[in-house]
């Protein structure tokens, strides 16, 4: 079922829930198309018939209460769920028209196109420099000048250059939490991916560090397609162009952030946004 590619709004009745595919709005069209995507952890199903198209060059936020499957969905996009025993998937995820769950798909090549930032900063126990250029190193790039250039570009992009330029050789573990998270963003962007996946990137940070990261996301949105999972609805409202609301493994509503936050069509979205549950 190539539902995701459908350009018009097309409600699908599915177990009493309405799953909505969003109209393409971005000038460049959709970069990721998800159609009828199901995921099981062993016997229990975590995602039900998720169906959406992620627009190129925009920031898309996934919101919803804990356990609704938004992180699972995000981790399905670069196949990080492959690492978990007993995970099965069904349905389509297409990156630029190619099915990433195809048996011939190259997972490593896929992950090179999808930068990922995790909930907790996870710098490697190496120097700041080596952390940033890690994606290039695994590609076998060893030319010092190329690496230095990539490192500076990525660190500038993550607004960390000024703070870190004099201590590139020091251990990344000596940075503060907020700096570490920006370092992880620099690392995720150093390989120049197409899509940046962010899994609650600010949940372990203090408000000032959070503000910096949000500012950064604004800047990144021009260059990358960003998909961000967040618990913080203000954050979603502030940084994203599109918002998807998920509930109990289903995509309930997906559309313009403004629309979702002002005139949600589903009562559950309304309830969540106004804080009645979640």
């Amino acid at each position, binding site marked *: 079922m190539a539902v995701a590619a459908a350009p018009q709004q097309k409600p699908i009745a599915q177990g009493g829930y309405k799953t909505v595919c969003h109209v393409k709005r971005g000038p460049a069209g959709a970069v990721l198309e998800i159609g009828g995507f199901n995921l099981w952890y062993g016997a229990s199903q975590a995602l039900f018939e998720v169906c959406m198209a992620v627009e190129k060059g925009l920031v898309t936020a996934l919101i919803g209460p804990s356990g609704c499957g938004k992180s699972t969905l995000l981790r399905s996009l670069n196949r990080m769920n492959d690492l978990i025993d007993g995970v099965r998937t069904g349905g389509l995820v297409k990156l630029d028209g190619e099915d990433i769950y195809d048996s011939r798909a190259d997972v490593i090549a896929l992950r090179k196109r999808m930068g990922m930032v995790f909930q*907790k900063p996870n710098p490697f126990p190496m120097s700041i420099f080596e952390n940033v250029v890690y994606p290039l190193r695994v590609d076998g790039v060893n030319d010092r000048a190329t690496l230095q250039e990539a490192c500076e570009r990525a660190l500038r992009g993550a607004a960390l250059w000024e703070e870190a330029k004099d201590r590139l050789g020091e*251990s990344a573990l*000596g940075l503060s939490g907020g700096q570490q998270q920006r370092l992880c963003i620099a690392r995720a962007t150093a390989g120049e991916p197409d899509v940046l996946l962010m899994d609650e990137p600010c949940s372990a940070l203090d408000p000032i560090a959070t503000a910096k990261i949000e500012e950064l996301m604004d800047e990144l949105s021009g260059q990358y397609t960003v998909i961000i999972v967040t618990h913080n609805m203000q954050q979603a409202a502030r940084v994203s162009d599109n918002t998807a609301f998920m509930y109990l493994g289903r995509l309930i509503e997906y559309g313009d952030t403004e629309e979702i936050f002002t005139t949600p069509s589903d009562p559950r979205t309304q309830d969540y946004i106004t804080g009645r549950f979640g």
Partner: protein
Amino acid sequence: MPDSAISKTSAMAPARAPDAVRSRSTSLRARGEPFVWLLGGALAFGVMMIVGFLLLVLWNGIAAFFPKPLAEVRLTDGSKLAGEPTRRERYPVTPEQLGKLASAPRAAILAADGVSGRTLYRIGNYDIYNEDFRWVSDFEVTTVAYPAQLMFVERREWGPLVGSAVAMKLGNEAERPMAAFSAAAVTAAHREALARWERIRHLERGEIGRINHYLEQGRLRVRRAELRHGTASAEAQTARAAAEEQARELQKSYDAFSGEARDLRQRDATHLITFAEIGGKTKTLPLSGVVRMYAANDLHLMDKLAVYVSRWWEFLSDEPREANTEGGVLPAIFGTFAMTLLLVLVVAPFGVVTALYLREYARQGRLVSIVRISVNNLAGVPSIVYGVFGLGFFAYILGGTIDQVFFSERLPSPTFGTGGLLWSSLTLALLTVPVVIVATEEALAAVPRSMREGSLACGASKWQTIRNIVLPRAMPGIMTGIILAMARGAGEVAPLMLVGVVKLAPELPIDGFFPYIHLERSFMHLGFHIFDVGFQSRNSEAGKPMVFVTTVLLVALVAAMNASAIIIRSRLKRKFQGSQF
């Protein structure tokens, strides 16, 4: 069923008067106070046992080499003896002994419940008295004196001599009484004699040993040619001719060396020193036969320290003498070290690779569980079983095959087909590999998931992630496992007794002959040395100091390895696990 249970409790509940049952103060039991004391007591007991053991070994080991005074004891029967008082104890006097005593001492002993004290003297002079040690009961003693001229003489043969030096004869000079020599002259003469002795040893063991080695090589070449081409073949003839030619050459240098050694021996036999022991007999021996002599009661602290240091030096740098009860343990230190090194070289890659596969690549199923449980159980198999396995499999099957294929010319004397350094290391590697596997698996499991995910999300393959992220991060744990295995291997004795450790190894596993490292040779080991000196030698009392000193050395070796494990681990930890925030 549940219904009735509920109704029962609910029926009983109102019958209780809550205020009467509950008390406001917490009882000692509820606070767990007695258990805390029990646990603390158990810990204290354990710590005390370990500390006590260490103190005992350390004290005995450290004090063993310190020169003791020499007592001259005059006994009630008129005889005299001289020796080092080694230890004292109280013992019940037998009725026969009591019967022979005069009335005054008998009354004193009876007043003390028939118990008397006695002292063990190291009287030395085994060649005269046929005993090294002698118990002297307190009631036998008339006087005890510490004469300054009494000397403690460590000899190369017959153990120590206790007596006073009376005369010395240097070369072709006539024998002169000791008073005619100054202390410096005695020292110089002794030093010269020792240098001569070293030279003789070098000639006979080193040079002539080398000639013998080449002769043996020639014989083996002939044998190999005969085995390969037949006894009457042209190749065998050529080899025989070459060997004879070489033997002629070698015979020339052999004659030169043995001539020099003979001359030195003759010269050595003219440098003599004579001692008078307490019983009035004299003993003349070559000056080079004296390893060390000192007037025990005439030493200042510095002299005593000098003797102490020189004994330690001899212990650490020389070969054993006197059935291992004297001299040094250098071959044993070397053997222990070489074996442990080889053990690590085998066990580290093997254990780490196994654990990596088990933890990272194998599908976690029933088979892997069985393998893992089996590995853990391997650690519990008695070590002697490994020894039997090592002898049967490594030495006899593997080594026997190697001998037949590569060293057929040496048969029937085995090369690899008997116990040796290599087989000992492999046996101990089998014994200790579970330690490394378990430690490595735990270290790998402890690498946070976020690290692996971070690396994989950057587009790294699984192997790149393991090599760049997981292994460095797990390294402290892996190192700990390896060094614990090393420490365990260094201290293990039982299996080694079957697969290669010997009481006295004539050759070190490393020497100047190709291929320089001889893994097939049997070797000496500190742990076995302790067992041998303490329990297998003719004179266990004489070996006692050696047992303690060697124990101190072995404990120090193992402690040093464990300490380095802790240091390496904490250093790596600091490097890889900074604060998260």
